[in-house]
């Protein structure tokens, strides 16, 4: 009774309820929510649901990954490229615990995801039964919401809430744990979508007077700078952001998860902020007079030392999640609300401006970075291949239309720095958690969500081997994802730190690697290895032209470093170019 008072549901003409099993209800709920693809792995406590998935296979496609972690990353990739909720399913015990890395990743990167786990029969709860684990307890700190269902009659309402919570406001992962007896039990099925929960206010109402204060500050600014984050993409505010930037003529930088919201080639797009971001926006963070943060959370990888971060500037923070206001950086003006409506309200209040002298500063610093870093990365004169020139070749041949799914490490920083994007939702990477092994399964999910798009997975030799078994999923599903491994036979980013901060003591970072091409061929994938510059363009062309999945290993220089770099704890303006 209490539950029905505390949530609002979408009113549909009342249908007479059908008597069905809990497991059928789970599948029917997913179908009602528009789920066409889900990722998972069967096992004892979830078998009744898999039996229903078999019966409903014409309406909903279950993708068998090779590990439950792969299922969560695939669901994340699906969500990140489409904006829809990704769905992952697993059995109890180890099946459920294997989801945790992906759930934690989705939590810190605000990815909408619903995970459904089977659980032992309710009378066995707490008895240390076979494959029993307290997944609700384990997942609590890394979920937006979680819930255990022990009665079939609760299933429709709980799943409706799960989808609503995962997608609304600042999105995040939700886990629903369903006991096996609840899957077998029957219920009167009648699905109503959830449209509101009384204790939950996902989108704060915009206070127009605050927006006016923000607009005044921006209009008076001589050296304004925007840093936007993923909030712009999640809030589908790309057009609104572009309009604001263009009208007020503000140089605009992005966080790693904000990449691709505005095309790379846009003249006001000044690059990435943060540890391996671009030189100009990092240095000028400490010179701007007004810093406008939009849908970003001042992560420590963005700010460096907080005590010396943008102290000269007035800070305006556009943000949907009130807990982010003043969390890391004290703001002068906080505009609560979703990015789309906030920027829409802001736009008419802004004066037309161009800030030409201020722009010139960014250009000058870009030239410094170009001479010291970019030229060497993209047009190397030394013998070994660089990661940067691989990205350049991919840009050229995909014309910036590809979605780039990167893993974690040096190649990720290079990919995010150099990939060119014409479309939004095209940079899929593990930002907050830094989950090695994310890339390959996430690319599978992305390609399945948007089969019409070119999806290129770029991994290093380390992270690739953390989820390499998902090549089996690619083969079985015939997912035409393109898999690039930039192989330097090292855990490159850790090695770079060992070189710079641990006197080159390369503890456990050198990798003796297998024959990656043979492994890919073992999964019956087209595969090729390149180690010479003159072969690179041809290999990338062959990969891009392929209608089937394709594996490309590029053997790159072993001990290259990623620059620029803000050493941890240093100030953004102390960014090193070499």
């Amino acid at each position, binding site marked *: 009774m*209490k539950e029905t*008072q*505390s949530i*609002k549901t979408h009113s549909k003409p009342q249908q007479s309820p059908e008597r069905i099993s809990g497991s059928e209800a789970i599948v029917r709920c997913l179908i009602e929510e528009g789920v066409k693809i889900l990722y998972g792995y069967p096992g004892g406590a979830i078998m009744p649901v898999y039996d229903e998935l078999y019966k409903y296979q014409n309406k909903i496609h279950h993708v068998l990954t090779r590990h439950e972690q792969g299922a969560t990353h695939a669901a994340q990739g699906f969500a990140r490229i489409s904006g829809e909720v990704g769905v992952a399913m697993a059995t109890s015990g180890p099946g459920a615990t294997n989801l945790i890395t992906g759930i934690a990743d989705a939590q810190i990167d605000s990815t909408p995801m619903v995970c459904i786990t089977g659980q032992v029969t309710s009378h066995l709860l707490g008895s240390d039964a076979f494959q029993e684990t307290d997944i*609700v*307890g384990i997942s*609590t*700190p890394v979920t*937006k*919401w*979680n*819930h*255990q269902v022990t009665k079939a009659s609760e299933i429709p309402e709980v799943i409706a809430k799960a989808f609503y*919570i995962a997608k609304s406001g600042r999105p995040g992962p939700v886990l629903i744990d369903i006991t096996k007896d609840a899957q077998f039990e029957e219920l009167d099925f009648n699905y109503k979508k959830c449209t*509101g*929960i*009384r*204790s*939950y206010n996902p989108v704060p109402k915009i206070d127009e007077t605050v927006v006016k204060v923000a607009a005044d500050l921006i209009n008076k600014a001589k050296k304004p700078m925007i840093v936007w984050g993923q909030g712009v993409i999640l809030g589908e505010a790309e057009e609104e952001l572009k309009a604001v930037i263009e009208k007020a003529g503000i140089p605009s930088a992005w966080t790693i998860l904000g990449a691709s919201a505005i095309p790379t080639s846009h003249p006001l797009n000044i690059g990435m902020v943060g540890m391996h971001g671009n030189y100009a926006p990092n240095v000028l963070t400490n010179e701007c007079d007004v810093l406008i943060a939009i849908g970003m959370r001042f992560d420590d990888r963005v700010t460096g030392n907080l005590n010396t971060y943008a102290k000269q500037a007035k800070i305006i923070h556009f943000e949907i*999640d*009130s*807990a*982010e*206001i*003043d*969390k890391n950086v004290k703001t002068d003006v906080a505009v609560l609300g979703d990015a789309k409506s906030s920027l829409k309200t802001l736009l008419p209040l802004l004066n037309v401006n161009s800030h030409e002298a201020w722009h010139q500063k960014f250009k000058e610093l870009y030239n410094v970075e170009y001479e010291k870093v970019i030229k060497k990365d993209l047009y190397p004169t030394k013998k070994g291949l660089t990661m940067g020139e691989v990205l350049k070749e991919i840009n050229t041949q995909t014309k910036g239309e590809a979605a780039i799914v990167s893993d974690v490490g040096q190649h990720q920083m290079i990919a995010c720095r150099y990939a060119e994007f014409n479309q939004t939702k095209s940079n899929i990477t593990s930002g907050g958690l830094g989950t090695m092994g994310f890339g390959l399964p996430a690319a599978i999910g992305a390609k399945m969500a948007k089969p019409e798009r070119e999806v290129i997975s770029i991994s290093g030799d380390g992270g690739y081997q953390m989820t390499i078994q998902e090549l089996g999923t690619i083969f079985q599903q015939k997912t035409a994802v393109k898999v690039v491994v930039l192989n330097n036979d090292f855990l490159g980013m850790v090695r770079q730190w060992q070189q710079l901060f641990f006197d080159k003591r390369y503890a456990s970072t050198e990798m003796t690697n297998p024959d990656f091409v043979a492994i890919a061929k073992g999964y019956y994938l087209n595969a090729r290895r390149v180690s010479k510059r003159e072969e690179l363009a041809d290999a990338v062309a062959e990969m891009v032209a392929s209608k089937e999945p394709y594996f490309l290993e590029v053997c790159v220089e072993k001990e290259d470093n990623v620059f620029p770099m803000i050493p941890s704890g240093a100030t953004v303006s102390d960014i090193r170019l070499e």
Partner: protein
Amino acid sequence: MKKDIKPFLVSIYTENNIGLLNRISAIFQRRHINIESLNTSKSEIEGVSRFTLVVNITEDQMKKIIGQLERQVEVIKAYYHTDDETIYQISAMFKIKSNLLFEERQIQNIIKESNSRIVTVNKVFFVLEKSGRKEEIDLLYRELSAFGIMQFVRSGRIAVTKNEMKISTMLEAFQH
């Protein structure tokens, strides 16, 4: 920084769901903050639970934690207050050997002066209950421990605020 640390009373209005205690305590645990006292009960609104807890932290930390608490889907509203903004009480029980009640006249004086209440007496022991501020209970504890305490237990702090908390209005607004 150390000197800015003070006790805050946190009142959290929530839905009454399994697992919420875990979710709330995890927010403190993750930040390495000890919960000094904790009480959960129903509130003045039907179906709404109220958590009352005390933590010793800085006000800056406190504000951020309120934000994190309110982020939780099933938290309706969270507030923090300093001691002088609330009326608060804690309750304690002392189990003491019955013979002391008759042999040690001092004990009877202590009971009278402390405004504590005898809940039950039998041949073996009697139970004393005292509600009040922590200092009063600490004082009573010190006085009685001279004679020997068989068992002692103290509740978490409970408090009402001097100012209004507009939970009902918030919940009514949801219905429309």
